[in-house]
């Protein structure tokens, strides 16, 4: 189990790194957003003189890792399924769990890369100072907290085709990120959006990340973690259903 898992993770990560579209979508987008809103606007009048570089590190970090997980799973699985590649792997003695965990491992490693890049930017350009404990807590919580989104992506990957999957991922990803206060602080969003957003896993990951760097207005890490775990279970159930439905369609 361990050797195949290690290799699966390693080669999944290589696949992600070698795919320019993926790196651009998942690394450059959060970075560009963070540079614009967190760094360029730091201390400007638009933010009422507040330095948003630190809190936005948490929320854009969450935005970044969510994108990695949703895209690597949603699009990756949809494409491999459509190609018949997944079927070939399933015909080997590879355990299905190895396939999923390999992708989780690769996705989490890439998540770590995204968060560390954001932290470096904040530190170099916007005067962000994290203690070592904060850094570890931020990176660790965001990497682990990407798991529910891996599960969501897995469900999308089994439900959607290779052409519709990227669109579907964006339709989930962008509005949910906005409603969850990952782009602008939750407090300044309209009440109606807040009412929906507070139940989304994106919001809970954002709040958890803010908590680790002392920026959550109302820290509830246990509640956040519970909600994320609950979403993981729901998304896994959806993924299993979508897989069964897809399996029934095998025709040839």
């Amino acid at each position, binding site marked *: 189990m361990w050797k195949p898992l290690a290799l699966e993770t390693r080669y999944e990560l*290589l696949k992600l790194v070698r*795919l320019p579209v993926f790196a651009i979508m998942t690394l450059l987008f959060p970075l560009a957003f963070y540079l614009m809103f967190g760094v360029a606007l730091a201390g400007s009048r638009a933010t009422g003189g507040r330095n948003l570089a630190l809190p936005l590190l948490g929320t854009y970090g969450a935005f970044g890792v969510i994108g990695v997980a949703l895209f690597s799973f949603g699009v990756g699985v949809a494409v491999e399924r459509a*190609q*018949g590649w997944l079927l070939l792997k399933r015909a080997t003695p590879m355990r299905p769990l190895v396939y999923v965990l390999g992708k989780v491992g690769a996705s989490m490693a890439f998540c770590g890369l995204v968060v560390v890049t954001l932290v470096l930017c904040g530190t170099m350009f916007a005067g962000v100072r994290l203690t070592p404990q904060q850094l570890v807590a931020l990176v660790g919580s965001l990497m682990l907290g990407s798991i529910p989104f891996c599960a969501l992506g897995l469900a999308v990957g089994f439900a959607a085709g290779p052409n519709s999957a990227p669109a579907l991922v964006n339709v989930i990803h962008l509005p949910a990120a906005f409603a969850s206060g990952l782009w602008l602080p939750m407090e300044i969003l309209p009440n109606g959006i807040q009412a929906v957003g507070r139940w989304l896993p994106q919001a809970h990951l954002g709040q958890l990340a803010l908590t680790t760097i002392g920026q959550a207005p109302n820290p509830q890490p246990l509640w956040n973690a519970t909600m994320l775990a609950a979403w993981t279970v729901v998304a896994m159930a959806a993924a299993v259903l979508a897989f069964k439905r897809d399996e029934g369609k*095998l025709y040839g």
Partner: protein
Amino acid sequence: MRNPTTPIAELTGISHRFGATVALDQLDFSLRAGEVVALLGPNGAGKTTLVRVLMGLIRPSEGRARMWGLPPADPAARRRVGVMLQVARVPDTLTVREHVHLFSSYYGTPVSVDDTLTAAGVAEFANRRFGQLSGGQRQRALFALAICGRPDLLVLDEPTVGLDVEARGAFWSGVRGMIARGCSILLTTHYLEEADAIADRLVILRQGKVIRDGAPQAIKRQIAARKVTCTTSLEPHSLGAIYGVRSVAVAGDAVTLLTDDAERVVRELLARDPGLRNLEVTGARLDEAFLTLTGGQPGALPLSPRGATSSTEGGSRVEAVGA
């Protein structure tokens, strides 16, 4: 004589439906150690479904499937099988060597990566990414993935579709290497000539049933036929009713009959139509004869005008005919 050991693969009373389509219909099949079996049949005959049932990728609606006495999805069974399925594309960004390295880790006693690359004939492009390979190179790389686990059975689903003659030759020499090591083979193909050249047993499927099963020589003898061409005023339906006529094809005013008993059919034709002209009797090509077998009811006749047509590419690619 076949090896009397227990079967590697055994299907008993397998039926499988996709919605209203019956893919496999009360099918029995077994494969013993050392056999090289070719599954033949037109598209939709059930070849790929049969392979997927054997690989444990489909749970059949009815019946029992066993590999070495185990359920096909059991990892202990899968460790002894190498598979090539019809894969549209492979993750492009990994090299052949990387893919082989990963697949080898799934098996208990894999061949070393370098030996696999050599045996599959992919060593010279092992460090190229899958996305940069030609069609023939890609099939050989997929073959490398199939043999890396030291399989006792190699399952090849349409392995040579779309390959040119040269690439096919290279591919089959790799397969012969595995046969020489005692590996059993189950392959599906459209190409009768290929099946004939490599297999020691042909199994012909039609509409989810086995309609012929035996040594290539015996099957060829069974399906050998002659072609009777003429210009006649007789209706195709009455021609089809003549005893011994397997199929009727009309092209312009010429009629072509495929038959096992040309003399008898000619006598009957001349008796029924005194004005019959342009009579010609020739040997039918094997693929033409095969087509009537897979296209029509066993023992009965496909009476559509396109009953016995459609052999292309100068070889013997058999198309699905009037099902």
